[in-house]
């Protein structure tokens, strides 16, 4: 694709296409995907995540993950705090989410820390799916 002689334009086009491909893959995924800042606040959520939780993306933006959990589950975020602190790089767990209609939905979640160019923690990718119901 690119050669050292013609880098800038080709790379810009490649970068735009790659950005678009990632956005499309995340949006169209049949699994819930959300991004969290290092303050554990939502910065992005795909359609499936919104469908599962009942909130639209705008309502989730800026909210803390802990705000969507029942008060008695506040301790469930300790793994996430370790993750953003860089002590662990991923984890899997189950969260009980309070949906917008106040019903409780158990979600199986896997989280992965995304590191920046200096390897410092940058943000968190959270992938979720509903637990099977009896």
């Amino acid at each position, binding site marked *: 694709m690119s050669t*050292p002689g013609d880098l*800038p334009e080709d790379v810009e086009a490649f970068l735009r296409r790659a950005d678009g491909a*990632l956005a499309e893959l995340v949006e169209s*995924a049949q*699994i819930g995907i959300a991004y969290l800042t290092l303050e554990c606040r939502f910065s992005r959520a795909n359609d499936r995540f919104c469908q599962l939780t009942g909130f639209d993306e705008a309502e989730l933006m800026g909210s803390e993950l802990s705000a969507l959990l029942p008060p008695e589950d506040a301790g469930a975020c300790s793994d996430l705090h370790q993750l953003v602190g860089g002590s662990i790089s991923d984890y899997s767990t189950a969260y009980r989410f309070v949906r917008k209609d106040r019903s409780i939905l158990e979600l199986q979640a896997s989280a*992965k820390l995304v590191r920046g160019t200096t390897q410092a923690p940058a943000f968190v990718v959270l992938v979720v799916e509903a637990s099977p119901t009896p």
Partner: protein
Amino acid sequence: MSWVAGTHSDFSALLCDALSGSPLPIFFKRTDGTYLYVNDAYIAAAGLERDHIVGHTDYEIYPSETSKLYRANDALTMERRAPLQAEEFLQVNDQLRWFSVVKFPLCDSRGGVQGTFGLSIEITDKVWSCKAGPQVAFDRNQTGRRDEPPANTDEESRASDHALLDAIEAVKEAEKALRVAMEQTTKSAQDAAAQSIEGKGLPDLVEGDLWRRGSEIREQAASAIAQYEHALMILRLTMIRGLVDDHGMTFAEVGRRMGISRQLVARLYKS
């Protein structure tokens, strides 16, 4: 040892000497993050005066991102009331230095947490040697610069081009991996729907292969997205560096070209 038979103050004095003379950076902080004590090795590592550290919080001393990391690890140490080992970094005169830090909760006689105590070992060389591919060239180039950089030599430009090609390849590989992971999530959802139609209940799903695979697929998807995002970050940084170093563009010109602010370009360039 003489302090065994001596007074509490003898021991305190000996301890102070030991901490002060330690080649490892050592600190004591209050619960709110205010530094109570740092030894000479800490001052040397931070490249700051003692007065600029003691009596101040991380947020008053270090950049926001660095402080958040320090404070998150402090909070975890105090919350768990147990030692915590973590990797932390520090930017000193544009040099990024990495430390393996062990933090301990400081408790009073009643068991109340009063702060943290930490000691560090520098692992910068180990971190660089562990990094793969284009990141090594980049991160090494990132150090030792202040603002607008000097023009690259031809040899540096060729190295920069190769780093760019490597970064592009990393993005391509990451995209492939993400597509595979996403196909698996689709197939998993279809399989789950099919089993549901067949009337298999919760025990079959939970104990079956499908459910176990579901967990693996979620983890794989999360890793693939993280890998893709990281590869894109490296590519953006590589591209910015190429435009600035090899093509002589200013941060403002690069910002206009990429549709981002000059400040963000400068921050990324110097990140």
